[in-house]
């Protein structure tokens, strides 16, 4: 009852691991796919060369939200090959999140990921804390269009564009993705935020500012999905503060076909995907539906 087709991918359930969570190596992703029960997993964002990311502290935890700035650390795509290859026997689709400093870098990494066996590409146009990449692209209609188009022209697997809410008008960015033939939009990445400790009298994160994720992000992200769904026809994947099946359903009603889960892994454990699926299923049953499809976009 929970299987769904998103951007051409057949998923056994609509919960996906969000990028940057447990994704440093294939082993972490495998744990989420196998023990966790995610319908798909997104790798951490991968670049051309290895990157250490920011110094610690990289994370600040609140009751049910986080502020974090890891700075997109990763091994570089060549090293990452064996991490992705490890995942083949799980039969869970692997979405490779990629980023670059320059459009050619996005393209180069995306092509490699396709070759390594990724089922789809997620273009990181969302992440705010790593210089001229991620949200640097996603904050411009023009650059968004260019990146999506360039990658689409070089890979055959579906391409998702992950967007940031740190823009004046997310709908116009989403339209640029649609025009550039993106297969799906992921909304949203973390919103720029920070924590200052009043005793240390300093920003807590080494990068000073970071991204807000978790429960606090949900009302903002649901609004983004809803606004995009009203204007754009390609598939949408909701992301931000999904902790429970009820949270996921809110995204489906707003027009998302799947959801990504990041922060909740911390608060509900790796098995959060299974738990959320169980909760979605019991919601669907209690409301008399027999498939997930029936509720997509009902609140639009």
């Amino acid at each position: 009852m929970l299987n769904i087709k998103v951007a051409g991918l057949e998923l056994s359930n609509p919960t996906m691991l969000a990028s940057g969570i447990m994704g440093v190596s294939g082993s972490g992703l495998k744990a989420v796919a196998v023990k966790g029960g995610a319908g798909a997993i997104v790798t951490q964002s991968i670049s051309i060369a290895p990157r250490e990311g920011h110094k610690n502290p990289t994370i600040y935890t609140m009751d049910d939200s986080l502020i974090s700035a890891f700075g997109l650390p990763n091994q570089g795509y060549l090293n990452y090959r064996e991490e992705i290859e490890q995942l083949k026997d799980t039969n869970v689709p692997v979405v490779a999140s990629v980023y670059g400093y320059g459009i050619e870098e996005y393209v180069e990494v995306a092509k490699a990921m396709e070759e390594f066996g990724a089922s789809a590409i997620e273009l990181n146009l969302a992440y705010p804390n790593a210089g001229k990449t991620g949200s640097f692209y996603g904050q411009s209609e023009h650059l968004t269009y260019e990146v999506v188009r360039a990658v689409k022209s070089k890979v055959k697997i579906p391409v998702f564009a992950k967007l940031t809410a740190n823009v004046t008008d997310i709908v116009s960015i989403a339209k640029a993705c649609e025009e550039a033939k993106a297969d799906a939009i992921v909304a949203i990445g973390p919103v720029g935020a920070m924590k200052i400790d009043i005793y240390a009298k300093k920003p807590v994160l080494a990068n000073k500012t970071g991204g807000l994720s978790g429960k606090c992000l949900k009302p903002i992200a649901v609004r983004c999905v809803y606004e995009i769904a009203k204007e754009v026809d390609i598939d949408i994947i909701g992301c931000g503060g999904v902790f429970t099946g009820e949270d996921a359903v809110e995204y489906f009603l707003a027009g998302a076909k799947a959801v990504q889960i990041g922060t909740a892994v911390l608060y509900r454990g790796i098995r959060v995907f299974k738990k959320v699926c169980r909760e979605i299923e019991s919601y669907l049953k209690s409301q008399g539906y027999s498939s997930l499809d029936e509720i997509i976009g009902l609140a639009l």
Partner: protein
Amino acid sequence: MIAKLHVTKIREIIKETRRIKTFILDMKIKAQPGQFAMVWLPDVDEKPMALSYIDGYAGITVLKLGDFTKKLHEAKVGDIVGIRAPLGRGFKLRDEDKKILIVGGGIGVAPLAPLAEKAVEEGKEVTAIIGAVTKSELLFVNRFEKVGAKVYITTDDGTAGIKGFTTDAMRMLLEKETFDACYICGPEIMMVKALELARAKKIPSQVSLHRYFKCGIGICGACVLDGCGYRVCKEGPTFWDFEIEKCSEFGSYWRNAAGVKVYFKKK
């Protein structure tokens, strides 16, 4: 719940050896031996440190190594540090075990001292092997002795106790005595060898691992072990022998800040 950042002051500093200092924090805590803290030094970094004092005021014991630990060694009483603790899973003392062996090398002794104290409190008979490069670098021997543990000492250079590694002492000991459980912390190569010795005698053992930590709470994936998929910061840092057996990278490599594998030099 996940331990939140708590900014506090250094209450007391104890110079343990030439390169090791203990910092008692102005913060009371309830923790298990083997659990750790993420320690934030504003403007410097935040790194994992085992809790070496877990009753009353929390304490950490730090070996001067690179930039972070050097700065920490320069800190003074009253200086501010940020603490997230307790984190991870501590050592497990099982009711049925009456006689336990503790094997600690270098700074690895830090989480083992509170373990010994707790074990004695629970009525267990504790034997400890404590090793260091040289006599002056031996850590917490007095804490073990104070609670009445039987203590064996090893130094690489023979300046105290048995000349050699902790595993040399362990091998000798296990020839004449047996134990219900064994707890090991030290350089990874030492832990591999100690586990082998224990396994040969069928002694259930726990090791406490070090890996590069970022979040310290199980979300970033930096510390995930290949083979088993365990997060050292969350399912660990302590692992049972039967758990660590499934972790193919154990004894072979760790991953640096970028996630790239770094192989251990075999001694």
